[in-house]
């Protein structure tokens, strides 16, 4: 799993039927000092996250597991909202 900040949302009208009702958010992965790390991507939201929040997300087919037994075609999914996050400085 990776930590990221939700930076936006995506509106998609024409889509795979199994994506209907799912919320798609743009997330920007973060480094431990909260700087952007790599490209932003689109993740499906399983926990009610919103723009501006720090979250952790899972990549791969596992992103569809929160919606079991449905199997939406998603490869990134937000599975937690971070309340607090500390990294020891080295």
């Amino acid at each position: 799993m990776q930590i990221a900040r939700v930076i936006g949302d995506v509106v998609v009208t024409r889509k795979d039927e199994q994506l209907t009702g799912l919320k798609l958010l743009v997330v920007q992965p973060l480094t431990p000092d909260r700087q952007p790390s790599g490209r932003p991507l689109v993740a499906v939201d399983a926990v009610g996250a919103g723009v501006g929040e720090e979250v952790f997300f899972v990549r791969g087919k596992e992103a569809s597991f929160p919606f079991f037994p449905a199997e939406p075609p998603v490869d990134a999914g937000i599975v937690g909202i971070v309340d607090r996050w500390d990294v020891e400085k080295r």
Partner: protein
Amino acid sequence: MILAKVAGTVVATRKDERLVSSKLLVVRPVDPSGKAEGNYLVAVDTVDAGVGETVLVVSGSSARMASGMKDTPVDAAIVGIIDAVEVNE
């Protein structure tokens, strides 16, 4: 998933029989502002996308969960046509 812009089409006559009648498109990843970045890739289209449209591309084994793609040898599928991306950063 990634955002990508459809750049072209692919015609392949000789291919895995499970890909027969699948539509293949060449897409290029874009950032949320629409700027192209990175390498082109081939994705199977499940939503009738066309050249020039911005689409949602799912990669890896999840691509097989797209409509009609069960047990097919694909690792990238177009599963949505983007209407709008709103980014506050």
